[in-house]
């Protein structure tokens, strides 16, 4: 683990039956970076991100994942202290994963579960600090007006912004976003990416985001890591990602992964 690395993945492999979703992936993420994980579907992007949050185990063996210098998992086992890490790592899902029948406010307040008293959290007796933080976060992402509405009555873009607000209430230092815009229309997608970029620039949060749209990756992120068949095939500045490498990663139809025009 290098000096300023907040996340470190060492030699992680993951097999589903005979297929290798991750094949010896190593990756260091430094504090304050904004990284895009790209690659064709099935290349292992989501598996990698979910493993970093300990939502999924990697194969036993040499593989090891650390966050803030503490093990998240090693030798195929999730660390017993994974909750301490999760509190500081916000996770944004493609399907938002808000609890549909709860109000947007309650969903966002859930972000404080890791740091308020167990019983308070269990019964939803949110402290004033949580209430304020929740409304502040909702205002920051622009959906404070919908706080009282049930989450499942909101549009995809509004729900995804609510999910980001939940990570803010969590006071996460790292945000892992798994295809956060894949289920959204282009306008909502840009709004969500703008918010993530803003959290990275203004608040100094470290952001790792998997994306299908390579132009978004190049526009919003400084560093791009490309996976193909579970292996890292590119890791470098977004600006240096060129046509030739994209053909390597996605094949000759690589233009399909651009929403708003491919580089010539």
């Amino acid at each position, binding site marked *: 683990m290098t000096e300023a690395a907040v996340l470190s993945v060492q030699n992680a492999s993951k097999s589903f039956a005979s297929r290798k979703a991750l094949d010896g992936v190593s990756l260091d993420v430094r504090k304050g970076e904004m990284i895009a994980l790209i690659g064709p579907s099935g290349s292992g992007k989501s598996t990698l991100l979910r493993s970093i*949050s300990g939502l999924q185990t990697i194969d036993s063996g040499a593989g090891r994942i650390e966050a803030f210098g503490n093990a998240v998992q090693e030798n195929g086992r999730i660390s017993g202290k994974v909750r301490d890490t*999760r509190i500081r790592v916000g996770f944004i899902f493609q399907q938002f994963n808000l*609890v549909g*029948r709860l109000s947007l406010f309650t969903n966002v307040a859930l972000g*404080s579960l*890791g740091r308020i008293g167990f019983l308070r959290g269990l019964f939803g007796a949110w402290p004033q600090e949580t209430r304020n933080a929740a409304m502040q976060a909702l205002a920051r992402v622009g959906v404070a007006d919908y706080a009282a509405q049930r989450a499942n009555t909101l549009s995809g873009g509004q729900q995804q912004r609510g999910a980001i607000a939940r990570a803010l209430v969590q006071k996460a230092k790292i945000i892992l976003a798994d295809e956060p815009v894949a289920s959204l229309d282009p306008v909502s997608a840009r709004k969500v990416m703008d918010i993530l970029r803003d959290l990275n620039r203004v608040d100094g949060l470290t952001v790792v985001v998997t994306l299908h749209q390579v132009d978004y990756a190049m526009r919003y992120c400084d560093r791009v890591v490309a996976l193909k068949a579970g292996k890292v095939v590119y890791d470098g500045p977004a600006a240096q990602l060129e046509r030739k490498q994209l053909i390597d990663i996605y094949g000759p139809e690589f233009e399909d992964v651009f929403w708003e025009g491919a580089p010539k």
Partner: protein
Amino acid sequence: MTQIPALAEIPKPPSRPLGQQVFDLILWGGIIALLVISFGPAEMAKLPLLFQNSDNMRQFGSEFTKPDFTEWRLLIAQMWVTIQIALWGTSIAVLLAVPLGLLGARNVTPSWLQWPIRRAMDALRSVPDLVIGTIFVVAVGLGPFAGVMALALNTGGVLGKLFSEAVESIDKGPVEGVRATGAAPLQEIVWGVIPQVAPLWTSYALYRFESNSRAATVLGLIGAGGIGQILFDSLNSFAYSRTAAISIVIVAAVTLIDLLSQTIRARLL
């Protein structure tokens, strides 16, 4: 123009495989054979008696058309007792079923614990409430409390299984969403699982309250009090007019509860 393919090229229409045909034959043949064998023991030969002893039926029928409501205060009071038995029985059952339902769900509980819990619920469910009631009558004496316990245990097993199945069909996304905030396992259940199953659980509980108000009536047979007990008393003393009045009160009350709970359930889902 498309060519009409030669007859030999068109695949034959699918025919049912021989194995399935044999299975059907055995199944239906078996059912018919069982019905024939059971004809004697079930005394089905007595079927014509329904029409031959028409005198008894006529007397029964004519008194039934003149329900005797002189004791209506008592009838309403006893009906209310029966409903109260059902209310407490169902409520205790729900309290039992919530932990059982969570512990019996494969996606929440590790299998070494989930499996025995499921079998325990099967055991509770397989004992009829009349049998449990009889045991409690021995233990705590005649009266409504025995009825409450009978309903609570039997319904606890039924609701526990239904609750487990509801939990097993939830979407795991929101649960992961809560988990990713660093929530404790119990908090994951309260915030990620319960909100998803709450409407279904409530609906099942209300439905069981409906059927328990019917079951509580039958429990009167073993001396568990309520309107059931005076129903069987008046049946046994051939007081058919009184029986008719009691039946009408029961049907009216159960229908009312059905309508009420259906309205609530329709709003929940």
